C-alpha cells in the first residue's frame, strides 16, 4: 500500500467514522485473484465505490486460493467475500448469499474449455493425453465443470490428461494455453469474454473448444450467522445499490457487470448437479 492510498483511506475512515457500526474497523471484503488478476485499478475502483455506498471504509483482502478465502469467511478474518458457486455449495450450511452479479442481463455464466488457436480439437475427448491448466481446485468453471464432465466419461483429470496444473487465476489459464505451456485449459467464460475485449491479443491465441451450460455466477457470500448484523445488512444494500451511483456504475463498468442482484440458492442447482456427478463417480 502506498502512502497516498493509506492517507486517502485514513481520511475516508475519519469521515465515515460516525456512521460506522464498528468505529475504526473497516468492512473487510475477501477476493481471490481468480478473475481480478493483478488489476489494481479495478480493485481500487471497487473499493472506492463500496466504501462510498456503505458510508464507511471497505478493505479488500486478496488471497491466492478459494480455499483460503472460504476459510477466512468461516474464521471471521473477512466479513464477506466474492467467491465461487462451488465453494458456496461446499459450505452452504455455514454461508449465506449477499448478492450475485448480473452479467449481460443474467446472473449466469459458462465454463469454457479452451485450446490454442491452431489446435484441431473439437471437444474434450480430443484433448486426451495433453497438458491441461485448471485455475483453482475450488473453482466451478476452472475445475468442477471439466472434472465432472470427465467423471461422466468415467475419467479423472489425472487419468485423462498427461499432466494438470493449477494456475490460481482464470487469466493465467488463458496465458498458459496461449503461451503453449499447456494444450488446453478450463476457464471462466465471463473472464475469457472480458479478456477478449480488454486483451484481445491474448485470447486471440486461444480458441473455445467447448462451452458448458449456463451456471450461477460467482456470488458475494458471508457467514450465515452474521447476516442479521446491521453492518452486514448495510453492506448487502450497498452491493445491490452499486448501480445507483456513478462511482458504483464506474466500478461495475470496469468489471463488465450490469449490477449486483439479490440471489437465491436455487441459482446454483446446476453446479450442485455437477458436484453430485463428481462425487457419484
Amino acid at each position, binding site marked *: 500500500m502506498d502512502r497516498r492510498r493509506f492517507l486517502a483511506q485514513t481520511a475516508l475512515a475519519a469521515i465515515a467514522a460516525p456512521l460506522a457500526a464498528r468505529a475504526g474497523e473497516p468492512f473487510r471484503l475477501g477476493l481471490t485473484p481468480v478473475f481480478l488478476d493483478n488489476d489494481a485499478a479495478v480493485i481500487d475502483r471497487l473499493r472506492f465505490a463500496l466504501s462510498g455506498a456503505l458510508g464507511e471504509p471497505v478493505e479488500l483482502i486478496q488471497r491466492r486460493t478459494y480455499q483460503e478465502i472460504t476459510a477466512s469467511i468461516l474464521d471471521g478474518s473477512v466479513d464477506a467475500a466474492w467467491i465461487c458457486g462451488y465453494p458456496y455449495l461446499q459450505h452452504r450450511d455455514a454461508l449465506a448469499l449477499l448478492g450475485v452479479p448480473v452479467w449481460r442481463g443474467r446472473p449466469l455464466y459458462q465454463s469454457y474449455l479452451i485450446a490454442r488457436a491452431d489446435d484441431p480439437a473439437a471437444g474434450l475427448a480430443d484433448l486426451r493425453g495433453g497438458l491441461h491448466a485448471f485455475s483453482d481446485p475450488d473453482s466451478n468453471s476452472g475445475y468442477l465443470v471439466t472434472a465432472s464432465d470427465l467423471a461422466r466419461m468415467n475419467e479423472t483429470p489425472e487419468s485423462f490428461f498427461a*499432466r494438470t496444473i493449477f494456475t490460481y487465476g482464470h487469466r*493465467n489459464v488463458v*496465458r*498458459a494455453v496461449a503461451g503453449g505451456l499447456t494444450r488446453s485449459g478450463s476457464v471462466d467464460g465471463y473472464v475469457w469474454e472480458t479478456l477478449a475485449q480488454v486483451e484481445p491479443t491474448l485470447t486471440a491465441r486461444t480458441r473455445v473448444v467447448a462451452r458448458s451450460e449456463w451456471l450461477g455466477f460467482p456470488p458475494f457470500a458471508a457467514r450465515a450467522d452474521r447476516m442479521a448484523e446491521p453492518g452486514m445488512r448495510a453492506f448487502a444494500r450497498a452491493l445491490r445499490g452499486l448501480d445507483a451511483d456513478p462511482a458504483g456504475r464506474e466500478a461495475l463498468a470496469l468489471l463488465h457487470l450490469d449490477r449486483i442482484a439479490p440471489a437465491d440458492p436455487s441459482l446454483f442447482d446446476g453446479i450442485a448437479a455437477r458436484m453430485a456427478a463428481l462425487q457419484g463417480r
Partner: protein
Amino acid sequence: MRADPRSWPITVRVGAAAAGLMILLGLAASQQVLATLGRLQDARLQEIARLHVEGLAVALGPFVLHKDVWEVYDTLDRARGAGRIRFTVVADDEGRVLAATDPLRAPVGSALARFAEGASPLGSVSADGAEEVVRIAAPLEYQGRRVGRIVTELDVSDLAAERRRATLALLAGNGAATALLVLAGYLAVARLLRPVELLARHMGEAGDAPRPIPERMIPRSDNVLARLLRNFNAMTGAIEARAQAERRLAERERFVSLGRLSSSLAHEINNPLGGLLNAADTIRAYADRPEVVRQSAELLDRGLRHLRDVSRAMLDEHRLDRAGRPLSRADFEDLRVLFSPEARRRAQRLEWRVEGDERDLAAFPSAPVRQIALNLLLNAAAAAPQGGVVELSAEADGAALTLRIGDDGPGLSDAARARLMSEAPLEPGGGVGLRLVRELTRGLGGAIDCARMDGRTVIEIRLPARAEA
C-alpha cells in the same frame, strides 16, 4: 610513381617508412583497445548473466523444488521482457523441463540436455565473436542444494554492434590520425632532408658537372649537414681544378705532338734547303741564261711553297682560335703534310683515304678531330715497325664521322689500352696522348673501338654529327 620503391625520392621513401610505422602503431593500438573492450564486455556480460541466473534462482528455487510448473512459467514469463533474455528453460533435478519462456520450443517434461548443448558455464561467458546470442547453463540451487538446472540464451547483439561500431570508429579515427601523422611526418622528413636534396641536385643529377651550393642555401642550424655541404663545395672546387688542369694538359699535348714531329719536320725543311741554295747559286752563275734562271726559279718556287705549306700546317696546329671552326678536307691535307715526313723518316708506307663531301665534314669541329687523328697517327707510327704500314681512313656521311687509324705493329700494350679504353688512373711516366683521345671523343659524344684484324691494329673513332650542323 615508379614501381620500385628504391627508385623513389628519399623524402618519399622516408615518409612512406614513417607512414608504415604509424599504421602499424595504429593497428596495434586499435587491437589493444578492441581487446580491452572485449574484456569489459565479457565482464559486463558475465555480471548480467550472473545477476540474471541468481535472480531466477532466488525467484524459482521453491517452485522448482516443488516442481510447480505454472509458477516457474509465470516467473519466467514475467521476467521475459527484461533486458537481453531471449529464452530461458528450467529443468528439475532429473533434467526434465519444468517450464520455458517458449513452451512450444521446450515442452513441459521434455529433456533439457538438447538445450544445454554448447552452453557455457556462468564464469566463462564471452560475447567474443559474431554470434548475436550466447547460451549459458547454470545449476539452480535452493537452500544449499541443487534442485534443478537453468539454460538461458542472452541477446548480445547490442554488444556485437557496439564492438562493430568501436571497430569502425577506431578504424576511422586511427585512419585519420595516421593520415595526419603521415602528412606531418612527411613534411618534417622533407624539411630535414632538404639539404640532402639540395646536395643531390647540385651533384649533377642531369649528368652535368657538380655545381657548388650557394652559401646562402647552406643551413646555419645543423652543423653536421652544413659541414657536409661545405665539404661538397670544396670537392666541386677540386673537381673544377682538375678539369682545368686536364684542359691545360690537352693544350700542351698539342705542342707535345708537334714536338714529336719536330725532328722530321726539321728534316722536311732542311732537305729542300740544299736544293734551294743550289738553285740560288745556279741563278747567280747563269744569270745570262734565261731558261736556266726560269728553271731554277720554278725549283725555288716549288720548294718555297712546300716550306710554306709545312709551316702553315704547323702554325695551324698551334693556333688557339680554331675552336668552333668546322672540319674540312684541308684539315686532313694539313695532317698529311705534318705526318708524312715522320712516316718517311721511318720508311713507313702511308695509306690515306678521306671520303665525304665538305658539307658532311663540316658537321664536325676541326680542332678535336685533328688532335684525335694526329695523336693516333703518331701512336701508330711509333707502333708500326721500320718499313711498316700506317693507315688513315675518314668517312663522313652526314650522320657520323668514322675515323680509322691502323698500323701493322704488335698491338696496344695493356697500359696503352687502359689509357684509351678506360677511366683507370694514369700510370706515372706513361704518355697522356691516348687518354686525351678518349676524353676528346667522349666530349664529342663519340665511341672508341679497338680491334686487331689481318695483323693490323685498328682504332675506330665514331663521332655523331652535331645537331646544329
